[in-house]
C-alpha cells in the first residue's frame, strides 16, 4: 500500500517534469508544421520570397520588439513568406533551425546569432546549397566572410561614442568641463559584441578629454544582480564618483538600487550622472523619475532594413557587407511622455 502511494507521487513528479519538456516540444512541432504548410503554399504561389528566420529567443521586451518588427515587415502582403523559429537561447536549436531551412530550400536565411562563433559549418552548408544568409543584430566570427552576404547590425561603437559626446556637452552646459571628472564603468558580459563596442566607443571619446578619469571598469554581466553588486563595491572604494556608465539597462537598475541604498543619488538632480544603454521602456520610466540622465538606444526595429535588403538582393543589387540601423538617444530634456507613446518597446 505504502509503496503504491510512493510510486504515485513519483509518477506525478515525473509527469510534472515531462509536462515541462512537452510544452517546449510542442513548440518545435508547431514550427515544423508551419514549415510543411509553407512548402505546399510556395508551390502554389511562386512569387513569394521564402525567408527562414532563426531568432535567439524571447527573453526581453527588446527582443520581442525586434521579432515583431521583423514579422510586421516580412508579410505575405509585402511579398514574403516567413518561417520563424524561436531557438530558446540555445545555439544547437539555431543550428538545427538553419539546417531545416536548408532542407526546405528557402530563398533566404536570416540568423540572429546567440554567440559569435561556431557557425562555420552550418553556414558553409547554406552556401553550398546556394542560399544567401543575412546576419542580423550581432556579428559572427567566421574564417570565411563570404559565408554570409550581409549583416544588419546595431553600431555599439557609435553608441559608446555618442554617450561620450553627450557627456562632454552635458558637462559643458553645467560649467564642469574644466574640473576633474571621475568615471566608473559597469561592463557587460565580457566578449559580447555590445560590451566590446560600447567600451571601445566611449574610451575613444574619453581619451580626448584629459580631465576625464576612468577610475575603474568592473564587470556586471548585463544582469541586475551583478550590476548592483559591482556598484556597491565601487561605492565603497571611491567616495567621489561623478559619472556612472552602465552598459545596459538591467545593470543600471541594479546600480541605481545600490546608489540609493548607500544614501547617494543619481540622475539630473543627484550627485552622480547616470548614463545607460538600450533604452527599454522601464529605463525611460526611471528617467522620468529622475534616476537616469541619458540612455542610448540599441534599435530593435530592424525589420524595415531587413526587408529592403532582401528586395535589393532580389533585384541583383550589390549590398554593403555591414549595414547599421539608425539609432537615437534619450535624455531628460526631451518630452519623454510623448516619445514613449510612439515606442514599440
Amino acid at each position, binding site marked *: 500500500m505504502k509503496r503504491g502511494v*510512493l510510486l504515485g*507521487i*513519483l509518477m506525478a*513528479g515525473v509527469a*510534472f*517534469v515531462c509536462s*515541462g*519538456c512537452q*510544452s*517546449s516540444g510542442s513548440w518545435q512541432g508547431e514550427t515544423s508544421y508551419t514549415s510543411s504548410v509553407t512548402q505546399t503554399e510556395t508551390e502554389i504561389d511562386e512569387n513569394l520570397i521564402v525567408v527562414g528566420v532563426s531568432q535567439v*529567443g*524571447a*527573453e*526581453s*521586451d527588446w527582443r*520581442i520588439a525586434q521579432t515583431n518588427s521583423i514579422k510586421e515587415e516580412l508579410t505575405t502582403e509585402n511579398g514574403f513568406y516567413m518561417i520563424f523559429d524561436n531557438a*530558446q*537561447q540555445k545555439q544547437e536549436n539555431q543550428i538545427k533551425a538553419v539546417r531545416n531551412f536548408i532542407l526546405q530550400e528557402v530563398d533566404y536565411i536570416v540568423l540572429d546569432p546567440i554567440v559569435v562563433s561556431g557557425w562555420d559549418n552550418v553556414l558553409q552548408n547554406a552556401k553550398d546549397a546556394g542560399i544567401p544568409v543575412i546576419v542580423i543584430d550581432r556579428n559572427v566570427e567566421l574564417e570565411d566572410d563570404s559565408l554570409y552576404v550581409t549583416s544588419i547590425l546595431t553600431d555599439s561603437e557609435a553608441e559608446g561614442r555618442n554617450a561620450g559626446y553627450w557627456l562632454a556637452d552635458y558637462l559643458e552646459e553645467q560649467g564642469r568641463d574644466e574640473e576633474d571628472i571621475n568615471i566608473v564603468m559597469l*561592463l557587460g*558580459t*565580457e*566578449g559580447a559584441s555590445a560590451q566590446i563596442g560600447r567600451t571601445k566607443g566611449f574610451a575613444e571619446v574619453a581619451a580626448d578629454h584629459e580631465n576625464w578619469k576612468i577610475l*575603474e*571598469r*568592473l*564587470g*556586471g*554581466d548585463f*544582469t*541586475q*544582480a*551583478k550590476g*548592483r*553588486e*559591482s556598484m*556597491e*563595491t565601487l561605492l*565603497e*572604494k571611491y567616495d567621489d564618483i561623478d559619472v556612472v556608465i552602465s552598459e545596459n539597462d*538591467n545593470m543600471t*537598475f*541594479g546600480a541605481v538600487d545600490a546608489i540609493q*541604498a*548607500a*544614501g*547617494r543619488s543619481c540622475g539630473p538632480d543627484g550627485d552622480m550622472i547616470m548614463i545607460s544603454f538600450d533604452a527599454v*521602456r*522601464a529605463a525611460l520610466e526611471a528617467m522620468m523619475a529622475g534616476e537616469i540622465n541619458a540612455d542610448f538606444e540599441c534599435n530593435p526595429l530592424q525589420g524595415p532594413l531587413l526587408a529592403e535588403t532582401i528586395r535589393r538582393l532580389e533585384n541583383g543589387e550589390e549590398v554593403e557587407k555591414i549595414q547599421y540601423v539608425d539609432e537615437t538617444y534619450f535624455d531628460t530634456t526631451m518630452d519623454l511622455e510623448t516619445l514613449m507613446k510612439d515606442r514599440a518597446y
Partner: protein
Amino acid sequence: MSSLKKLTQKRLFLPIFSMILVMLINVIYDIACGNMPLQFFVITIKNGVLYGRLIDVLNRGSEIAILAIGMTLVVSSSAGTDISVGSVMSLYAGVCCMILAGYGNVNVSSYAHPLLVGILGGLAVTTICGLFNGLLVAYLNIQPMVATLILWSAGRAIGLLLCNSQIVYVRVPSFQKIGAYTGIIPTPIIVAAICIAIAACVLKFTALGTYIQSVGINKKASRIAGFNSAKIILLTYIICGLCSGLAGMVATSRIYSADTNNIGLNMEMDAILSVALGGNSLGGGKFNLAGSIIGAYTIQAITTTLYALGVSSAQAPVFKAIVVILIVVIQAEPFKVYMKKLTAKRAQAKEAA
C-alpha cells in the same frame, strides 16, 4: 606549544583558518593601498543602514549559507551532492513572480495575489522538488548526482516557461523588503541567521543529526539498528529543497524580479564547495554544520575581495580557483601527514645536532 597543537587539532580550526587567511589578504591589500589596515572590518552606519565590506560579505553570502545547510545534510546522509539547488532557486523565482504578477504579465506594480501566497507557493514547489529528488535517491537507489541532474536541467526550464521566457518584474516595496533592509540590518542576513539558528537547534536538541550521520556512515547497519534509512535520506533532500527555495526567495527579492536565466546560476558549485571547505567529507557520514557555514562565507569573502581588488568578473573564477586549491590542499589528509613527517624530521635533525 602543546596548546597550539591542541588548537590545530580542533575540528573547526581549518575552516576558521581559511577564513582568516582570506581576511588577511584584505588587510595586506589595504596596507598596500595606503588605506587603514583594518578597513575590511570597519562597519559604519550610512544612510541609516549598516555599511562595510564585512557586512557585504555577510549580506551577499546569505544565499550560499542557506544552501550550505541543506547541502551539508544531503552530503552527510547520501554521500552525494544535490546539484539541482541553483536550478530550483530559479524555479522558485519563476513560480513566485508568476503568482504575484499573474501569468503573462512582465512588469507589475501591484500584486495579483497576496505576497504570502507567492512566497508559500514558491517554497511549496521547491519542497516538492526536494521530495522528488529524495524519492529517486532514497527509494529507487539512483545515484544522487544523476537523480538531481533531472531537476538541474529541468528546473530552470520550467521557471522560464512559467515566465514566458522573460524577466518578470514585481515592483512592489513589500516584495523588495526581503532583499533590502530591516531597520539597519540587511534582511538577507536576518533570513540566513534564522535558518542557521533553526538548523542548529534542530540538530542540537533532537537526535536527527545523529540519525543522519549514522545513515551516512553505514546505511545497512543503521537500518538493522532500527533507523528507517530511506526516510532519513528523503528528509534531508526535502530540507535541501526547502533551503533552495529560501535562498531563491532572498535572491529574487534582491532584484524584485524573476531573472530565471541568471538566478542561482552555478550556485550549486558554491554550495558544494562550502561543504568541502568546511572540512566535511563529500563521502558522507560525519558532518559539521558550523564548518559549512564558515565555508560559505569564506567563498563569498573571496569573491568580495576579488571585486575589491578590481579583478573583473570574467577573470575572478581563476583566482577563486587558486585560493580554493590552496585551502583544499591545506586541509587534505595526506598533506597533513606529510607536514607532520617533515616537522618530525626537523626535530630529529635538531636533536642529532
